[in-house]
């Protein structure tokens, strides 16, 4: 798999060798963390603990090795150029001129790591307006699509640096475009592109049991209009099993808005299976994907994606419009092609393990 595009945008200012050495020296020379920094702590507690205080920084060599992220080609003037010549302070705040008062963070308050925030919000410092029509991605989708910066022109002053978390959910090019134009006011219309705000995985921290219960409460209250309920339940996890795999995965259907995205999410998910897995009890698997079996799969069989609907019937994925599918899908199963014959083959959504999950999509109603 090619390296993710994010690399091009990361100016990791880690002077790698030196910082690691410093750190490891500390590790080996002390037996307790407190002693490592005891003297330093005393001095740091004497200082006004202010990020702009260089004393603190020097102690742990932060300044030197602060991770910086930024636009390709942009340079923060105070910084030494890093290896790839880009650096931008994290969270748009230079350590030197930041101070506990300098919270011109109001532009930044709307930045949510992992959320598909209006990038333009950051630049403009506009507040509010969360209603962006974002489609979240599953975590499995990380490698796909880079985080994109499409700056709205104009120089970026120091305050409005681009922020990027290297491990956030990346946004598709399409999404970035939408972000630029599309700032939906908070609306109560369920039908215009989902007015729910951008979803972050696992936030707010509510257990699945509770989320699912509340989702079905809302659905009942809304009397089944539009299948998903007015404000949306936020996520819709369905179990995904694959014939031959030692354990299930879970996929949030709300992170996909069409079959294409579903296909790529699933690819991501199951391409992580490697040789020598454990069975469902966590014991070294006799039934795991052995090397020879993996080869068989790679070379021969086609897989077919099926789903169990509300009526507990197993159907082929791809026959119905996406919305209808997402509303009725209870769980997914990646079945061996041979087993799926009984379900009818002329409209099917299948993909094989060959050539690293080449997709073959044929469906009657491609969703909008």
């Amino acid at each position, binding site marked *: 798999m090619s390296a993710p595009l994010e690399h091009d945008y990361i100016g990791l200012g880690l002077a790698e060798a030196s910082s690691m050495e410093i750190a490891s020296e500390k590790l080996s020379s002390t037996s307790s963390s407190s002693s490592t920094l005891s003297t330093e702590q005393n001095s740091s507690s004497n200082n006004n603990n202010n990020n702009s205080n260089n004393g603190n920084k020097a102690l742990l060599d932060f300044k030197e090795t602060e991770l910086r992220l930024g636009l390709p080609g942009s340079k923060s003037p105070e910084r030494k150029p890093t290896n790839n010549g880009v650096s931008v302070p994290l969270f748009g705040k230079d350590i030197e001129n930041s101070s506990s008062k300098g919270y011109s963070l109001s532009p930044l308050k709307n930045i*949510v790591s992992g959320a598909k925030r209006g990038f333009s919000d950051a630049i403009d410092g506009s507040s509010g307006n969360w209603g962006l029509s974002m489609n979240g991605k599953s975590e499995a989708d990380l490698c796909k699509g880079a985080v994109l910066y499409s700056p709205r022109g104009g120089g970026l002053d120091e305050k409005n640096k681009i922020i990027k978390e290297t491990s956030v959910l990346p946004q598709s090019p399409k999404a970035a475009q939408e972000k630029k134009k599309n700032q939906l006011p908070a609306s109560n219309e369920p039908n215009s592109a989902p007015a729910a705000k951008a979803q972050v995985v696992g936030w707010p*921290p509510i257990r699945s049991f509770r989320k699912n219960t509340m989702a079905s409460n809302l659905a009942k209250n809304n009397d089944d209009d539009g299948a998903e309920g007015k404000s949306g339940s936020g996520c819709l996890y369905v179990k995904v099993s694959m014939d031959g795999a030692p354990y299930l995965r879970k996929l949030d259907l709300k992170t996909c808005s069409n079959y294409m995205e579903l296909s790529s999410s699933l690819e991501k998910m199951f391409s992580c299976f490697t040789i020598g897995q454990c069975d469902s009890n966590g014991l*070294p698997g006799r039934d795991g994907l052995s090397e020879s079996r993996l080869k068989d799969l790679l070379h021969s069989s086609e897989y077919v994606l099926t789903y169990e609907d509300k009526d507990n019937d197993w159907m082929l994925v791809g026959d119905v419009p996406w919305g209808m599918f997402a509303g009725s899908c209870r769980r997914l199963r990646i079945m061996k092609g041979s087993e799926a014959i009984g379900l009818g083959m002329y409209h099917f959504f299948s993909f094989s393990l060959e050539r690293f999950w080449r997709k073959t999509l044929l469906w009657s109603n491609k969703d909008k």
Partner: protein
Amino acid sequence: MLKRMSYSSFPEDVLEHVFSFVQSDKDRNAISLVCKSWFEIERWCRRRIFVGNCYAVSPRMVIRRFPDVRSVELKGKPHFADFNLVPEGWGGHVYPWIYAMATGYPCLEEIRLKRMVVTDETLELIAKSFKNFKVLVLSSCEGFSTHGLAAIAANCRNLRELDLRESEVEDLSGNWLSHFPDTCTSLVALNIACVGSEVSFSALERLVGRSPCLRTLRLNRAVPLDKLANLLRRAPQLTELGTGAYSSDLRPEALSNLAGAFSGCKELKGMSGFWDVVPAYLPAIYPVCSGLTSLNLSYASIQSPDLIKLVSQCQNLQRLWVLDYIEDSGLEALAASCKDLQELRVFPSEPFGVEPNVSLTEQGLVCVSEGCPKLESVLYFCRRFSNDALVTIARNRPNMTRFRLCIIEPRTPDYLTHQPLDTGFGAIVENCKYLRRLSLSGLLTDLVFEYIGTYAKKLEMLSVAFAGESDLGLHHVLSGCEGLRKLEIRDCPFGDKALLANAAKLETMRSLWMSSCLVSLEACKLLGQKMPRLNVEVIDERGPLDSRPKSFPVEKLYIYRSVAGPRFDMPGFVWNMDEDSALRLS
């Protein structure tokens, strides 16, 4: 049982008898450190063990040291698994433990599991291995179906407790309840609230009818309200009741019938359930309100006026879980009526909604903190907060022990001043000297972590999300919080330096979770190699680790101390960073 002659003048029997009065794990551990003979005596008479991380020790080691254990409690997945941050297949399999204990502890009576993968095979093994099995509690577990439950029901002749709280059960048939034999009359607690499908109601009725010791009964949503009265009449001795769906066609005689049944339950202390509530039926529980100490309305979509009517009658309430429908006005009423309140949890009714749908703000919590002197445990979801409010709460309630605030939108600043909430949370940790658990939210800089490191000396568990600015934040916490056992962090700009500089601290903690942070693979490897008593596990679903530069941050990192070495059941997306694994990787 081997008896060793000890040089102490105290006969072993006497010591053992004395030790039997000491139940807490900490104290037992202290006893075992006094001298070798006490260690020996203590280990033979320890009957209950708690393993907070099932991978910290192996079952064989446990059985070897404590040969005669009757009660085992294990925890598996990291806490953030509750919020879908831990991929399926990560681990937490209990089968190896059960397999070992089937031969090692034939007299085992109690198994309590949290966040573990429990298969039907496991349940079947439990059912046939432990002749005197009494208590099974599966909290947030998954991997089993109603078939496994049927095996437990059918074979555990002396079963006292079957508690499936919030587990995920695959519904293959509602018949499993009928597998309890007619001779089973020992049930004390039955919690099937999480089971989706209908259970055979007549089987349930008969089971309840023949269980005179039944004290806790939590029904699932599928049990209709019109059947509740019958059940209550068969079990007037209940102390804890979870209703099923609390809705029905409105018939006046049904309401009075239900109220009558409730009046018969003179010992009812706690209630839960209340799915699909029809407010008109709430008065049925008025007869028991004054005796209630615990009320879980967190699945009940009832609005503030009805809630106020209800809680105003529960003067002895100590614990309330409720949805934000209660609003500030309801919390004001709560503060006025329930002076014994110790724990409050307010959950969001529409967490993904764009606009607030209810009028619940920081004022509600401030009110309760003023009016309820015993309030010590808070979980509060809301959309705005202020430093002032936090300072007020801190000053009102220095007895706070658990404080979890979730401002729904990440990085929300003080809504009045637009400042970060550092000062507010700082006041919490400074004033609440016995604080054991803290969850942060809102806009926070490194300063809040400095406060935490300075003041939160009794803090055991800290949850952090979307906060901080640099490694200094993490460093403050790791170097300052002496009692820290569990630290979980997501989406914070914490990287290698703080982690490596405080590596030794990690051995004093149960675990550290970091996801979507800035810890590089290289640092993880270094940590894994230098710290043999830590398992440093990298979770990364993007593919093989060597396909990215070593300086690239890992997706997720889970570090925990262990005397068992690397675990054997890691799936393909989890890597252990110890010496051997590192060789394989490079």
